[in-house]
């Protein structure tokens, strides 16, 4: 299997890029693939904290690019999961410290060692995002079902399309069934209607995400939380498994996602 380089991005900040990156990286590694999660948010790094590896960070990928250290000195191996590595960003530098040529070079180095290279992009549409995306082939766009987030996601999808990234797939994060039922939150169909890209996952709002972020333990270490199961399904779909979208129904037993399932030709 050829190595796959995937950028996780969104446009808007705070919608769950880092949470998605850490959780699907863990899920893919537990499925037996050799995975590196790359924190491409120079100056505002978070992936190390989310993954609970910040105390073991010595070097970062700018050190690798500047020749200060070798790649394997910068890679932090996660002792809890086989085949899972983190390549941290520099906290004391800024996004001007690398150019797109160097990021492509970094991705080429990583392709030689890993099955999956997952790049956690910073928010925004400027140099930080472009550097995170330039070396990637595919993209995962994260959005929440809210008008400002969806508009920013649309912008970022336009940029990814013009950069030639494919496939570009969508994760709808922090869906609150009650608010959708009450018509206060965009439903999945509204979001897909606007963004018009393939959906790869829907992650429900789940308090466990906050707890896991503070503890540095990605959710996909344990199987039970609803969000954990959603991230697990995304990882499975990424490797080509046909995983159905679960039925999320309201108290009257009506499927909230029935319309979506019809869209995908599945029985509602």
């Amino acid at each position, binding site marked *: 299997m050829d190595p796959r380089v995937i950028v996780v991005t969104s446009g808007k900040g705070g919608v769950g890029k880092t949470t998605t990156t850490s959780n699907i990286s863990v899920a893919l590694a537990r499925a037996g693939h050799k995975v590196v999660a790359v924190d491409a948010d120079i100056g505002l790094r978070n992936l190390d904290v989310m993954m609970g590896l910040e105390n073991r960070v010595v070097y970062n990928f700018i050190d690798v690019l500047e020749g200060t250290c070798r790649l394997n000195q910068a890679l932090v191996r996660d002792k809890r999961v086989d085949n899972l590595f983190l390549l941290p960003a520099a906290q004391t530098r800024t996004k001007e410290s690398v150019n797109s040529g160097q990021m492509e070079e970094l991705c080429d180095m990583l392709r030689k060692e890993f099955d999956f290279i997952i790049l956690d992009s910073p928010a925004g549409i400027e140099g930080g995002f472009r550097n995170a995306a330039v070396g990637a082939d595919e993209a995962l766009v994260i959005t929440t079902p809210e008008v400002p987030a969806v508009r920013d996601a649309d912008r970022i999808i*336009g940029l990814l399309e013009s950069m030639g990234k494919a496939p570009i797939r969508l994760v709808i994060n922090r869906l609150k069934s009650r608010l959708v039922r009450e018509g206060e939150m965009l439903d999945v169909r509204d979001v897909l209607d606007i963004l018009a890209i393939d959906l790869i996952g829907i992650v429900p709002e789940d308090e466990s995400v906050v707890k896991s972020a503070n503890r540095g333990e990605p959710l996909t270490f344990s199987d039970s939380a609803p969000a954990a199961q959603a991230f697990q399904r995304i990882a499975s779909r990424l490797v080509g498994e046909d995983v159905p979208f679960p039925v999320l129904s309201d108290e009257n037993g009506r499927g909230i996602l029935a319309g979506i399932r019809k869209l995908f030709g599945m029985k509602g």
Partner: protein
Amino acid sequence: MSDPLEYKDAPELTGEISLKGTGYGIRMVFPETGTEEMLLSELERLCSEAPVLSGNLGIVMDFQGRRVSRDFILSLLSRFIWPRKMRVLSWTGYDAETLEDLRTMGAATGEPVPEKTGRREKQTAGALVLAKSLRSGQRVEHEGDVVVVGHVNDGAEVFASGSICVWGRLKGVAHAGLDGHEEHTVIAGAFEAKQVRIGGKVSSALGSSMEWWGKPVIITLENNSLVVRELKL
């Protein structure tokens, strides 16, 4: 005799530069996909195979919706146009940022002005027909009418000297009639925009409470007011 109408699936963007013969010479149409390095190599190949490009024929560089980098423009000048003495009549496209760069350097943009030949020539370009949706942040400018066979998403903008017709949902900004003539219109398959403009008039008191919201509409400028009529076919 086979039927002249061929059915084809939507063409894949092949990423090739195409050359079209026109009244003034050649139109060099650049694809919207493909990296700039690939395009420059492609152009090398074309120039070696088509010596007509170095002759006296005028050439119009058409970038379509591609956002062309400044480096690319410089490469075109230094690697092809100057060494081969190509005669470029104008640089066109509908990506607003690219047009801005070209205008700042004083390049002729838009359709070439035809030399007086005694025949009546069209002074403006025809309609720009876009067979795709426009995403947030994409901005189209055109001298003439614009037809979008798709949606114009929130955050996208269409500016036309003529009329604008959006087959799908219009959620972004449409500004028609930039040439100052009042007869231009904005047509939408489903109107959901917070603002619409014709000529110098801007209407921004729009919202989902209006009875024609989300419906097909035709918007015109009459007696200095923007008038919306639901399109009932």
